[in-house]
């Protein structure tokens, strides 16, 4: 039971990362690979927030009602994840723009055919 309580989040996020990597490694469609990268980003963000999570902690936001602070969760990973999510979106948007342009030029998104530049 104790394994479940403390490690379920890590299992979840690293499962996401591994699935994302598998998609990026194996799938031949460009959009599918970009989805894989998106999965990896989500997994990594989940992992960062999970590192900051304390057992029974509360959200690091003070309000008139909740004044006490010792049970609060570590706010730093949340700040990092905020940045990481937006980085993920930016990379994703650029990736999809490039995918559209690749489709314009080559008419296909199959990575096995997109080998114009090699050797």
């Amino acid at each position: 039971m104790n394994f479940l309580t403390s490690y379920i989040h890590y299992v979840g996020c690293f499962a996401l990362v591994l699935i994302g990597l598998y998609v990026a490694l194996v799938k031949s469609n460009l959009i599918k690979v970009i989805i894989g990268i998106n999965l990896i980003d989500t997994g990594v963000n989940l992992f960062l927030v999970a590192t900051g999570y304390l057992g029974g902690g509360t959200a690091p936001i003070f309000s008139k009602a909740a004044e006490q602070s010792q049970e609060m969760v570590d706010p730093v990973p949340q700040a990092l994840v905020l940045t990481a999510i937006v980085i993920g979106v930016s990379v994703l948007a650029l990736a999809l723009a490039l995918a559209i342009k690749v489709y314009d030029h080559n008419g296909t998104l199959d990575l096995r055919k997109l080998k114009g530049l090699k050797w």
Partner: protein
Amino acid sequence: MRKQISLLLLLIVAAGFALCLAGAPFGAEGARESRRLVKDNVNYGRRYVSKGLDENRCANIVTSVVLNYRGFDTLGEVTILFIAALGLGAVLYGRRAGASPDEAQRPSLILSTGCRLLFPLIMLVGIYIFIHGHLSPGGGFQGGAVIASGFLLICLGCRKKKLNSVALGAAESLSGLAFVLLALIGLAVGGSFLLNFLPTGKVYALFSGGIIPLIYIAIGVKVGSELSGIIDNLSGEVR
């Protein structure tokens, strides 16, 4: 052949993760005891939580970490979004030839008026989110995203209204400039970049936290205009 190799590789990577996470500091329970043992000055998460409130008088500690303690990251972050919007524009530069959709797909009257009615409400929610970034959860990024979803609605819902890209670009760069100037004033006045030079006011009041709400407003406008710029670029025209 490719599948087997990648499965083998991922197996070893998974083993690496497992090897890493076995120890004490990871895992929710493990984290809790290890945090309690650790004194404040070693783990800065606890220090921000314990002293953050009276240093910046900003209720949302995450916001004070995002903008004050680690504000330089957010400056980098905003630059990245700016680069993404411009990069998208640069890459899709040559594709302006948009074919106007045929009659059949034009949105019905109800849909377009509904959207135009809903748009100001979404903007209001978005603006509320990033104005109250330092009090309640949420902030520049989340508010900007909501504003962008408003623009998305306009973009999908009603065809006629074309987003004024020059205004978006101006909003984008002006708000980015505002953020950097606020930080530079901190350097000029208080001797260190991103310093919270304004009085930080009472804790839960709207005008608390010194320059933090100002920066979050600038970020909100910037993220909103950039994400809608991205959407406008990507949805330039439907073939």
